[in-house]
């Protein structure tokens, strides 16, 4: 069986700085994998290599068996099937919420206006912002904006979803709404690769947790085991800092 995502010996340099030092990793279809680790450990870069927002310096990336790092591959076509949610939401501020969710359906998938609108409304409803269709992104709270961003990605019928610290820019009281939507997606069987600092979410929702530090995967395993009983000293130290910040 082909993996939803497979990374083979992935290296990424920014100038002389090696951010990813040979990552091997797989995500299977229907799995939810959370990537945790200190800032600067390369988690976001890893995620961005999957849909080639960052071009890996060396190594291969496969998405559903297709090698996306192959220069002959139509990357736009590959990205259509990979939803991505960003830390800063990146909604299009000059369009209404509804247009945000419709535009790529119309321009990329060539769906008609009424079909795109119906799908947009359905997905906005699903993430709980159906009442905000005509608002501009700037008029919404961070939590609402992030849910619109999730709806925008879902409207493309992605086969898998990438989440890049989706709750890190949110006020604490708004985090729950976004996590609830992500949890629902996970329960529906969406394949998800999530970079996050939400240990509770990782423990409860993820099938696997990957701990990264210094550009390498330090520990990769069952969520409850990596968070509850980490085998590596670095993982233990990190989790201790995160879970008991005042010690």
């Amino acid at each position, binding site marked *: 069986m082909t993996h939803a995502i497979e990374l083979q010996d992935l290296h990424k340099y920014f100038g002389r700085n090696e951010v990813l030092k040979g990552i091997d990793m797989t995500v299977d279809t229907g799995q939810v994998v959370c990537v945790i680790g200190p800032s600067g450990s390369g988690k976001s870069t890893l995620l961005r290599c999957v*849909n080639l*927002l960052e071009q890996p310096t060396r190594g291969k990336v496969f998405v559903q068996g297709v090698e996306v790092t192959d220069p002959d591959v139509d990357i*736009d*076509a590959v*990205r*259509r099937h*990979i*939803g*991505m949610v*960003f830390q*800063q939401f*990146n*909604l*299009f*501020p*000059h369009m209404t919420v509804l247009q945000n969710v419709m*535009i*790529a359906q119309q*321009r*990329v*998938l060539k769906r008609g206006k009424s079909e795109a609108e119906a799908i947009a409304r359905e997905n906005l409803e699903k993430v709980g912002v159906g009442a905000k269709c005509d608002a501009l992104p*700037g008029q919404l709270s961070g939590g609402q904006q992030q849910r619109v*961003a999730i709806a*925008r*990605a879902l409207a*493309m019928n992605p086969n898998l979803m990438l989440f890049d610290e989706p709750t890190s820019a949110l006020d604490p009281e708004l985090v729950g709404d976004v996590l609830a939507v992500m949890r629902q997606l996970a329960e529906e069987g969406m394949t998800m690769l999530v970079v996050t600092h939400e240990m509770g979410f990782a423990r409860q929702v993820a099938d696997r947790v990957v701990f990264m530090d210094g550009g390498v995967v330090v520990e990769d395993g069952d969520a409850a085991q990596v968070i509850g009983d980490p085998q590596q000293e670095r993982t233990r130290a990190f989790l201790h800092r995160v879970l008991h910040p005042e010690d």
Partner: protein
Amino acid sequence: MADQPMTAEPARARLSPRKKQRISRGVQYVVLLAVLVAVVLYADWGSLAQNFAKPDVAGHALPDLFTVALRNTIIYAVGGFVCSFLLGLLLALMKLSQVRPYRWISTIYIEIFRGLPALLIFLLITFLPLALPGFEVPGGTYGQGILGLGLVGAAYQAEVFRAGLQAVPKGQVEAARSLGMSATRAQITVVIPQAIRMVIPPTTNQFVALLKDSSLVLFLGVSGEYVELAKFGNDLASQYANATPIMVAGLTYLIVTIPLGYLASRLEGRKGRTR
């Protein structure tokens, strides 16, 4: 004056800073009053009024002042603006292009047309038919004026657009690309509309500059139905040996440019609030 060293000897600092400020302000009022008195006493008001604000000469300017001169000024300015807008956007995109020769071409164009006086461009345009036999700028005199204003305005507008395009956050392109849009599609759908919104205030100022520069059409040797405000005022002034028509033309410019200036600063203020 305000920042006298704090270490000055206490004995010499007999005046407190506030007292010094009050005296300074008093002196400024005295100077102003003296200048005003001198102007009122020594200027020949009768002669000035005769030459710069003669009602019957001003009367002769109507109705052509509005129906011909202002109309033409607006035609030149709007036409030139549309050209500079489109060419400026193209130049800005070229300047930010991945293709190095495009960047060079754009840079060279911008440097040349910003570095030369606009008047020189207009003088050169009058020689185009000589340089290119059989070539005629489409639209005749209007076309020549619009071409000149468009070429010059594009260089400035390109820099305005470049700033606007660069001000759109990188995450916007990433979001568009992650949805499967091509680089070109992302520019057209996501980046350029936002950049245009951002550059509306400076672009309004560009339009005002262009409107004033339309007076350079004078040097194309226009006449009759093609004259714009400056040429119109100048012709009438020669005819009556009186500067009143130039003043009238000037007032007409102000009727357009001052509201536009206010509009630009209002738009700028609004941008500050919504961002």
